[in-house]
């Protein structure tokens, strides 16, 4: 791909970007959201056509006009959101669009053989060809999609954030598969935010910023800090700005809290003005814990007590009234109403100030929302813009602003930085620090350990529904957290919970 340029109206999304991937090579393509990665992807996939510049595969010109063309030329995309037909079997999904046929009829045995071979190349022969794909775990679904690319004789695989919904173990497995594929001579393009992963898996890298290529080279010659600096255009130390804050008296008290399935018997006290981190693997019960506190998930036994307010409500509505706010980990499905405006999303939980006799006073609301947007440094056309049109980072700022707007004292943030770029992450970290300094209490669930360790005062680690261990953030190491989270530490001291 050389000198590719693409403009949308007056915005130049890509200007003169070139990169190449060789056989048996993994090239990382990194950059913040809006840097031009998705545009580049879409050009490769034939969704958009470049305004100028050329692309070639194996020396042959490559100009896909639709997704199928890219596939036929040997370029296969593995998107972040998986492209599978959940009701169809593994075999049908792998062979979709490339069925072995005879006069319109399926050649059952041939199809099964090709699908089986593709799975075997991924060392996944244990996946049943007849299982409906929708019932497989997400990591296996992803492998089915890779198998489909292999069955289509793809020579270049493009992965878009493939690990964002995977656990550590599954990520490691995926990397092993990718290394295998590299050794069989495939060229792999790996698009990611996670610099640690890039360092682990890729051979060479290209950094995009504002639609331009700003850095390129061998990964052996670059540190994560170098890459981050190239991505953001500034020093990484600014990423975790520290706002001094002082923890006060207890605010949230959990006593032997158990949900329908998860969590199990959690005791916890979080203090006013404290940032409390919750670490653990996917399925450890972190989300279930904060959802139970908020009243979204049923509480089977135990008690949630908010000091000076009383027992927490058993519904989100009651929780909001008691000053408890929640940001969902699933921004698209649950956290925001993507089709509504910024103003609607921001004020949905607290329309009181703008209504008189049940009628909304829209100008007043618009002015207030504009102020909030300025305070949150949210880049958008205006309060009436549809929130789905914003970048993930700006969406998330509005999601958090909603809690502040509803005057929450206790903020339950479930993976608030998932899928947003480094610049927006830094802004959210700064915001969390500032809120703690104002005396707000934050419970911060995350799978990204560096942010927990740099932003939180204390971190609790969950494993199989139980809160295994709590320490000051400075007393944890990443290794120790993983040790506890994987249950390896369970036998050593099962009941060690330290409350300062």
């Amino acid at each position, binding site marked *: 791909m050389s000198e590719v340029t693409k403009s949308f109206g007056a915005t130049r999304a890509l200007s003169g970007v070139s990169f190449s991937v060789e056989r048996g090579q993994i090239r990382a393509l990194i950059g913040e959201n809006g840097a031009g990665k998705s545009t580049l992807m879409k050009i490769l996939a034939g969704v958009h056509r470049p305004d100028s510049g050329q692309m070639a595969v194996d020396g042959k010109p490559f100009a896909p006009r639709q*997704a*199928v063309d890219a*596939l*036929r030329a040997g370029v296969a*995309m593995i998107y972040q959101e998986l*492209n*599978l*037909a*959940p*009701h*169809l079997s593994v075999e*049908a999904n792998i062979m*979709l*669009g*490339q*069925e072995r*046929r005879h006069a*319109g*009829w*399926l050649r*059952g045995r041939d199809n099964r053989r090709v699908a089986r071979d593709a799975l075997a190349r991924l060392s996944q022969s*244990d*996946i*049943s060809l*007849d*299982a*409906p794909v*929708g*019932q*497989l*775990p997400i990591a*296996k679904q992803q492998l089915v999609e890779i198998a*489909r690319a292999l069955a289509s004789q793809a020579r270049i695989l493009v992965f878009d954030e493939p690990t964002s919904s995977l656990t550590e173990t599954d990520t490691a497995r995926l990397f092993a598969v990718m290394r295998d594929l590299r050794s069989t001579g495939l060229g792999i393009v790996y698009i990611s935010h996670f610099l640690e992963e890039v360092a682990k898996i890729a051979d060479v890298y290209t950094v995009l910023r504002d639609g331009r290529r700003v850095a390129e080279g061998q990964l052996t010659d670059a540190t994560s800090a170098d890459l981050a600096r190239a991505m953001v255009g500034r020093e990484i130390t600014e990423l975790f700005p520290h706002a001094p804050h002082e923890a006060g008296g207890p605010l949230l008290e959990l006593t032997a809290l158990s949900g329908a399935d998860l969590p199990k018997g959690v005791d916890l006290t979080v203090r006013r003005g404290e940032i409390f981190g919750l670490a653990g693997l996917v399925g450890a019960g972190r989300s279930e814990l904060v959802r139970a506190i908020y009243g979204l998930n049923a509480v089977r036994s135990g008690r949630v007590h908010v000091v000076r307010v009383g027992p927490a409500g058993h519904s989100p509505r009651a929780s909001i009234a008691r000053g408890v706010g929640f940001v969902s980990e699933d921004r698209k499905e649950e956290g925001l109403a993507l089709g509504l405006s910024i103003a609607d999303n921001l004020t949905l939980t607290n329309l009181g100030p703008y209504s008189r006799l049940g009628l909304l006073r829209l100008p007043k609301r618009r002015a207030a929302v504009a102020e909030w947007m300025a305070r949150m440094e949210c880049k958008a056309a205006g309060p009436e813009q549809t929130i789905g049109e914003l970048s993930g980072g700006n969406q998330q700022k509005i999601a958090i602003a909603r809690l502040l707007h509803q005057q929450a004292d206790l903020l339950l943030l479930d993976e608030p930085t998932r899928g947003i770029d480094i610049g927006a992450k830094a802004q959210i970290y700064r915001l969390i620090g500032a809120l703690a300094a104002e005396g707000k209490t934050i419970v911060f669930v995350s799978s990204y350990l560096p942010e927990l360790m740099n932003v939180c005062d204390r971190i609790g680690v969950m494993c199989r529904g139980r809160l295994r261990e709590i320490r000051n953030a400075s007393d944890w190491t990443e290794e120790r957290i993983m040790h506890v989270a994987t249950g390896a530490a369970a036998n050593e001291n099962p009941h060690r919970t330290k409350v300062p």
Partner: protein
Amino acid sequence: MTAAFPPSTGGSDSSPAPTPGPVATHPALAVWSAIQPFVVLFVVVATFWLYGQVQRPDSPFLSSPRMATIAKQTAIVGMGALGMTVIIISGGIDLSAGAILALASVALAKTLADGMSPGMAVLVTLLLGCAAGVLNGLLVTGLRLVPFIVTLGNMLVFRGLAEQLARQQKITVEHSPSWIASLLDTPPVGSYRLMATGAWLVVLLAAIASLVMRYTIFGRHVYAIGSNEATARLCGVSVPRTKVIVYAIGGLFMAMAGIYSFSDLNSQGDPGAGLGLELDIIAAVVIGGGSLSGGRGSLLGSIIGALTMTTLRSGCVYVGVSDPIQKIIIGAIIIAAVSIDQLTQRRRRG
């Protein structure tokens, strides 16, 4: 899980069970979802049979004339359900089904009355139904409108066409050929045919359509489009062409149902026929395990669904339930059947 193990040689049967695969589907639930339509039908039949044994031992529910009547009444809804199933699997819906039926029945009557040869008249009728379906399909794919809206509009368009064609009157054909007139006639008691030719034809077509849906590229692509249209497009499936064919097939089956209706009304083309029938047809598909969000559905299941609906109607008459109560019962059973299905689906995923 289907691997054949070598026969055990002696006492080594205590080897540990193979580790469960990644799919944690309870086999019983998988089986249940396939047989549920049959179970619902069985429960309905058994209920009326029991009622008969207790209340009316002189006239049992499962008499062969009654069963033949049920088979005949199922034929029209069942024929429509075949086409509707394919449409629903693709993630679509056809609200114009009843209107296509009326259009077809009028067209058949008109062509026969005008002296066209019966074979030709049937062919024209089928082509007309097909064309109506193609129009639905082209509007859905060409204008990128949701099928609900397109077929809602065409429901009126086709009904209007039928009325226009018939000049708002029923068209009676005096000398309709016997193979059309007797399509739904119940064979004499004791005949080896057991049920009407039309009913057998539904069974035959259901079998053929099942094979097509299972063993052809077309069938697989229909399931893929219903399950995840974006993926199907990405994988090079020609989504518009497949959809147009799907609606054409739907129209074809509705035209067949129109011919049945003509025969059922003693060789009369009625522009008012099949009013609201699309809802019965959709209900039959859904009771048979079809999902209105696409990707799921079975032709055999839909026939069983149609049979269930007819049996319920016939049973209510047998018991002597009034018409309003009958409606309430049938409505409740539709909701119950679908919610049981939803429940097991959720269990399978969870």
